[in-house]
C-alpha cells in the first residue's frame, strides 16, 4: 500500500525527480542491527555558535532580513523525545539566494549570511535556531536560463540523525500563510494534507525576543520507536 504521508518519488514538472527516482518499487527491508543502530555524534563537536545563522562570527553585522527563532522537539513515533539528535540546516538568504556553487541566480548575496547551521537536541529532545527568514525564489528552467514558472516558497532545509540508520530524516520546513506553499511542487508531492501540514512551522508570538526575532515552533517526528532502557532500573 502506498504511504500517502510521504511524498511521491516522481514529481510531474520536477525534472531531476523524473530522471533520478527508481522506477521499480523498493524491495522489502529485513530489519537487522544495520537498521536499528546508527551513527553517534559527539555533542562537543558542535559549537554553540552554530545554532545562530544570523551572525557569521561575533562582532560581524547581523544578516539582512527578518530575524526569526525556530524551536521545537525531535520525537519518536510515540512522542518520546530524542536527546542528542544532530540537526543540520541550510537555507537561502532573505532575497532567496544560496551561498552555493550550484546557485546560478543573479539574486544578490548578503556578505553577512552563509545560511548553514548545526545544533544538537538537549535531554528533552529540544533544539533552538536563530536565523533570518529566507526569501522565496524562482526556479530556473533547465537550459536557456528561462524561468520555469515554479517558485519555491520560503523554506529551511533540515537533515536529522536520530538513534538509528532507519530514522534518518531529510526534510524542509515551510512558513505558515505563504501563498507559494499551495503551488509548490515539492510540498504538494505529499498526497495527505495532514502530513503536508507537518512541514509548516507554527507562528509562535510568545517566542518573540526583545531584539525583534519572530518565533516559530516546529517539531520533527522520526520513524521508529525508542526503547525504554530505564524500565528495568526500578529495583
Amino acid at each position: 500500500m502506498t504511504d500517502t504521508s510521504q511524498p511521491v518519488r516522481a514529481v510531474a514538472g520536477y525534472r531531476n525527480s523524473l530522471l533520478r527516482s527508481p522506477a521499480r518499487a523498493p524491495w522489502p527491508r529485513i530489519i537487522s542491527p544495520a537498521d536499528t543502530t546508527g551513527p553517534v555524534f559527539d555533542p562537543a563537536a558542535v559549537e554553540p555558535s552554530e545554532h545562530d545563522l544570523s551572525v557569521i562570527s561575533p562582532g560581524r553585522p547581523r544578516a539582512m532580513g527578518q530575524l526569526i527563532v525556530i524551536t521545537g522537539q525531535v520525537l519518536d513515533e510515540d512522542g518520546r523525545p530524542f536527546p542528542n539528535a544532530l540537526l543540520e540546516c541550510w537555507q537561502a538568504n532573505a532575497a532567496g539566494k544560496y551561498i552555493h556553487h550550484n546557485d546560478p541566480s543573479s539574486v544578490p548575496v548578503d556578505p553577512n549570511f552563509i545560511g548553514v547551521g548545526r545544533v544538537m537536541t538537549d535531554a528533552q529532545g529540544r533544539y533552538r535556531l536563530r536565523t533570518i527568514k529566507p526569501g522565496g525564489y524562482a526556479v530556473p528552467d533547465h537550459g536557456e536560463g528561462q524561468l520555469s514558472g515554479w517558485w519555491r516558497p520560503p523554506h529551511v532545509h533540515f537533515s536529522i540523525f536520530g538513534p538509528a540508520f532507519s530514522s534518518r530524516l531529510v526534510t524542509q520546513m515551510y512558513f505558515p500563510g505563504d501563498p507559494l506553499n499551495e503551488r509548490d511542487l515539492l510540498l504538494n508531492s505529499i498526497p495527505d494534507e495532514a502530513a503536508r501540514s507537518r512541514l509548516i512551522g507554527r507562528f509562535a508570538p510568545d517566542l518573540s525576543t526583545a531584539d525583534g526575532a519572530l518565533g516559530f515552533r516546529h517539531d520533527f517526528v522520526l520513524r521508529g520507536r525508542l526503547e525504554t532502557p530505564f524500565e528495568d532500573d526500578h529495583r
Partner: protein
Amino acid sequence: MIPTPSQTAGPFFPASFIRAEDRDLTVGRRGEPIPGESMELEGRVFDALGDPVVNAILELWQADGAGRFPAAADPFRGWGRTWTDESGRYRFRTIKPGPYRVPGHDWTRPPHLSLMVLGSGLMRPLVTQLFFPDEPLNETDRQWQAVTDPAARRRLVLQPVGSGPVYRFDIRLRGEDETPFLVD
C-alpha cells in the same frame, strides 16, 4: 504520531557538511588508526539517461572488522559521507566489515555496507545494502533472499577492481539495470 514527511535535500547541500575525515573511516574519532582490513569503495552514480549525477550525497553505515556496530565511545565511527564529483564519481576508504549474528535469531549476516543516497530529485532517501563477492553467508542472508530477482541481487555485489582491496559499486538510479533499493 505521523512521521515527518521527507523532502529532497535539493541541489544546495552545504559543502561544509562534508568533511575530509567523513570519507575515510579507517581513521578513528580521535585520529587513531582503526584495526582491520582496509579497503576502498568507489563508483559512479548515473540517472535514467545514463548521465552522471553530480552532487549526489552518499552516506555509509557499517559494522567494524569484528562485526560490531559502533557506540558513542568507540574509536570506529562506522559512518561516512561524501558526494559525487562532475563525473558522478565517489570514493570512500574504510575497513571491511565482519559478519555478525543477529541477536535473538538464528541468522548470521554476511559482511555488508549500508548506503543511503540523497540529493536533488530524490524526494525520499534511497537505501541499499552492498554485499561482497564469494561470501557463502550471502545465500542464507534474509535481506539477500528478500531481493528475489537473481539479476537484481547480482547488482548488489561489489566488483573487485585490480588486485588491491578496491571495490566498485556503480549506482543506476533509474532504468533497465537500476540498482535495487530497499524500503526506506
